[in-house]
């Protein structure tokens, strides 16, 4: 039996016009772990393509006295993720009568990102803080929850520009001598500032200001360092 062509919706055309739920708001974040401190830094520019939405839209957020999170990518997803983490931390606090530790948060974050495996949060996250022993720790994520504990990491639109610099200055890669890094807080902050100044020079999505969170055992301090605004 030869049938008439069946009238159907034209999926090809509809697919082409489909609403794109993602936006890339750019931004660079980095974190590094010291012996008894940790630094998380993120620039504050929010952009959309070639357009700068806002010069101060914070991407780094303090979660507790021991943990700071940095997100870049799609700003709305980043904000939503941080909001949900804070909510989960509150539940945890009421259930267990203690503040969630950084490694526990790191695991939770991985799970939360993976829960949205098939409609991911489009954000590149770094979690930095102090672990249960008071040592600096950094956790790096992809957008679907792959996690790795590292010493230092750059993420976001300027990660390719930043990471080799960190490899050299903090990882002490490609040295002929066996230098031992005595990473003091001052030195680390200086490296962070240098790194962001350089990235700002070449990445259009990074600039305006960088917020540097310094996490110590006796509290968190946030330093703002101005960057070029062009």
């Amino acid at each position, binding site marked *: *039996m030869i*049938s008439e062509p*069946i*009238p*159907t*919706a034209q999926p090809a055309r*509809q697919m082409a*016009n*489909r*609403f794109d*739920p*993602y*936006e890339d*708001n750019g931004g660079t974040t980095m974190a590094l772990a010291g012996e008894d401190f940790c630094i998380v830094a993120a620039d504050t520019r*929010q952009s*959309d393509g070639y*357009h700068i*939405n*806002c*010069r*101060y*839209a914070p991407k780094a957020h303090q979660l507790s006295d021991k943990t700071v999170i940095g997100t870049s990518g*799609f*700003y*709305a997803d980043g*904000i*939503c993720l941080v909001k949900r983490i804070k909510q989960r931390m509150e539940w945890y606090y009421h259930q267990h009568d203690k503040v969630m530790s950084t490694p526990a948060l790191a695991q939770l974050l991985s799970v939360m990102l993976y829960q949205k495996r098939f*409609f991911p949060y489009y954000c590149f996250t770094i979690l930095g803080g102090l672990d249960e022993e008071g040592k600096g720790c950094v956790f790096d994520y992809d957008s679907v929850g792959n996690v790795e504990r590292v010493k230092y990491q750059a993420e976001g639109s300027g990660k390719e520009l930043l990471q080799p610099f960190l490899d050299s200055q903090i990882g002490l890669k490609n040295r002929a001598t066996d230098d031992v890094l005595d990473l003091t807080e001052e030195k680390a902050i200086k490296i962070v500032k240098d790194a962001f100044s350089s990235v700002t020079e070449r990445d259009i999505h990074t600039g305006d200001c960088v917020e540097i969170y310094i996490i110590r055992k006796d509290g968190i301090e946030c330093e703002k360092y101005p960057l070029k605004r062009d």
Partner: protein
Amino acid sequence: MNTYPNPFSEAISYQRMEQYDQEHLESLSNISPMTRTQQPIVTGTSVLAVKYKDGIMMTTDCLASYGSLARFKNIERMIKVGNSTIIGASGDMSDFQYITYLMDKLMTKEYNANNGQPLAPENIYEYLSQVMYQRRNKFDPLWNALVVGGYQDGKSFLGYVNLRGTTYQSDTIATGYGAYIAQPLLRNAVEKKNGELFTEEEAKKLLDDCMRVLFYRDARSLNKLQRATVTAAGVTISEPYSLETEWGFAEHIRGYGA
């Protein structure tokens, strides 16, 4: 391996099955699928807003376009929410009017709660951005870029949220074509003031100047606009007014086929 013949094979009418399939498919094609805003239809163009000494000033024009057709020329694109907040909208006007309904509903609920704690601009902004973000999560966005302005307890508030739930707060906000043309002018004016805020007159002039440029260069704009302010005295949205324009220079413009 031993295979058994189907004892009912004779009884199966393949022709009947094909016919059934055909009818079934046809009936499927008559069901209209769930619809979503896949593109904006009747649209409003830029919204401009700045912080100034007494609060927030915001302007929009009164046009709602249907593609390139200037379809509705007396549309209000700013709404008052409570006594200390305004929302200005660009993008799809039907979605915006739905948002107006949502805001009405929210304020009615608040009125009934009567808890003596009126919603601050920040609260309304948070509510609105959550609505926008949740709708994008459902792949059913409200196709707008919204500006929320407010003034309460001596504090100015100015925030932006769009169809994907992206948010930011800033001293100057411009949406749509205004983001390209007016935002640089606004930022320039703010930076020249060196931290000082505009007076009412300065803010008025600045926004009017920007709207004039937009009227010259944005083909989807109209020289009939409204200005809204939010101050300690409350929200005012002006009657539509027009700007003085000067087209003499147009003679000297070359290019674009002229």
